């Protein structure tokens, strides 16, 4: 899938960019399961991209943070 530009000899890697993505990255799959099993959190998750990556509904960050803190977690929030 690598595309080479004959003029520059730079092989350009095809990529699709998803911007403004709101997601949770967990340390392990079990923790992701734990989050999905929590009723109030489960409804804020719109998809599980991988074992450890959960996609969040847009605009629901504060509610998710509050619920995670209730669970005793202190999540690291990047990009706020």
């Amino acid at each position, binding site marked *: 899938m690598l595309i080479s530009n004959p003029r520059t000899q730079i092989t*350009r890697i095809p990529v*699709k*960019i998803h*911007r403004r*993505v709101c*997601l949770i990255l967990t340390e392990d799959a079990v923790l992701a399961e734990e989050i999905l099993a929590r009723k109030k959190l489960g409804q804020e998750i719109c998809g599980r991209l991988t074992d450890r*990556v959960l996609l969040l509904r847009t605009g629901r960050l504060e509610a998710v943070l509050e619920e995670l*803190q209730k669970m005793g977690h202190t999540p690291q929030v990047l990009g706020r």
Partner: protein
Amino acid sequence: MAEEIRNPWTEKTRLTLGRYDEKLLREVAQKLLRPRSQWPVEELIERCVETFENTVLVDRRIKELNDPARNLLGVISRAMQYRWTLAQLVEISMMMGAEDGIAPVFELLGCGLLYPDFVDPLSSEPPPKPCKKPFIKNFEQWLGTPGPEGYQLYCHPLISVRASKVSLALPTVLPLNETDELQEVDKLAVVRKADGFEFLLRIAAITQRSRKDPIRKNQQGGFFKRDLEWLKTDPLIAQAPADYFADLPDQGPLLAELAISLGILKATDGEYVFASFPETWKQGLIDAVGELWAELVSQKNWNPIQGVKNSLEDASNPAMTVCMMSVLMLGNLEKDAWVSIPHLETWLLARHPLWKGNESLRPSVAQGWVQKYLLGIVYQLGMLEVTNDGQKNHLVRLSELGRRVLGLEKVPPASQEFPKTILVQPNLEVLAFRQGLTSAIVADLTHIATWRSIGPACQLLLEPDSIYFALESSWRYEELCSFLERHGTRSTPQAVLDSLKTWANKHERITIYTGGTLWEFPTEKDLDAALSRGLPALKVSDRFAISKTEAGVDFRNYRLTATRDYGLPPEKCVLLDPDGVTLMVDITKSDLVMETELPKFSDFQEALTTQQHRAHRITPDSLKRGLTQGYSRESLEEWFMLRAGHGLSAAIVLLLDHPEDKPVLEPMLVIHIPTELMADGIMQWPDTSKWISSRLGPKALTIEKANLQSFKQALMTASIEFEIPEN
């Protein structure tokens, strides 16, 4: 630091000069630059702003000013405040002895050493071409129509710095009136001075409280009633300091206003929340106190006698000018001279246009401002020393810290000190002893622990919320431990380190990206290639990597196949192949949620995948998998409507449905009819149709072997020949 200050102000000045009428601009430039030739306006403006960095020229221009204007500029410089109102400058000029308070302001405006403040360099609107749409034709016209910004002015910091050497036309010995008695210092009385941390600590406590209860302001500029209530009553913020001479009305709201002025609290969605501590807090107490003191004069809705006004209907606050001048006056007196505050106030009020000869003022506002200001604020900032005379009246003078803040004494070079001033106890309590505190330690402690009490020894508590906040403010576990070790009088107890470790570990278990960039590569090989070329992202699966921002990405290495905003609604992006089970996903339109849905009920087909489409195929097994994961025929139907624009294909329905009527195998003869019309006729004419079992297609009919002869005879009656093979 100089660059950070200079650039916005220089840009502001460039834009302001661009809004002058060309004639006015040339007049100002003539006094500031004295150009020898006629330059175009763009070049003239550029040269004017470049002049500010020419210290020799600026010094010369300051020297050439008349006395009232030079004095005014000197006060602006000493007060360390760049923004002023016209009223304040007029008041200052008159207190400095000018008969016409506005003339020195006009003199400074005309020389390009002071500017009307009506331009926002951060505005999104493009500025008009220089001098094409003049806002100010001359300064008299501006006085008549100042625009929505009002009578605001500013002095460029580079000019203000150069004016710091101007000696002020203030007395070095406070003259006494005939009625005043000379007050001698009681030599046995103690000289008291504060450490300067009281307000810093309380501002720190306000910022901490504002994390849970963000401060809000109403449209009039006052605090919301609920916020005003806690600012006035929270003992940590509002109670009188242990060492104090005067009660300060509404101390909490004043400190909150100062925190906002200093940018420690910033407005976000209508709420004031903690942003960061100013750089000056890292530099040391002199800078931190200086910045705090400089902001006092610009407070519009608080004064030392009435407290908070909580409404900006009357934005004038003349008392703060008098108060600021009282400190400059103290700075101008002989170094060790003690002054009685009433004498000082009488001298100042006698020169202020509001109080001068005004006998109609209510007694409550006639005097007492300077007493409250000096003893209530300046003393707590550590800028004042207080002692008594023989009759126990307070006498004051500037402390060493005060003189250093005003630039009257040299500031010693900053040394890299790590004072041991905190004691961490096993129960997570922290004691901070005031003797060794620095403004930087106050800021750091505010990040990692919750203030519980403020006194000679301050009490704090390390708790999950405070550590969480520290971790959120980009502290790491190692840095927390190192800070406690560096400033702890004893080594940090193991129990505390364990707690910190537990909280920090929990913090690292979950990471939330609030608006990250997700990089989707066609294959794992591509992703690995990108990472090896330095893509600053974290690999989260075989094809995906996440980064907080796109900063530092060398886009020359990539070919963007598509970009997609996560916030956009889902689009139709699936094409169903004629086989009814192969799904071709258009990657330019597909979104992440679909990426999570498809693998649940279909299998990826690498061989069929192209640069524009990713192929998936639905198989009986993949469908079974989908059904066990919660999909049903209805939800799949809905998914196809949303993503493909139509319902399930017959093939998928075939794989999904398990009807009770099973297919039956039976022998049947097929008659091929020459034309579709003839087949229609056979099916419609009762004599023939009764022998036909079913119609397979437009020109194919089925018939049982037993009915074959009867069917042939029926056709014969219509003169249609029909051959039946013998076998």
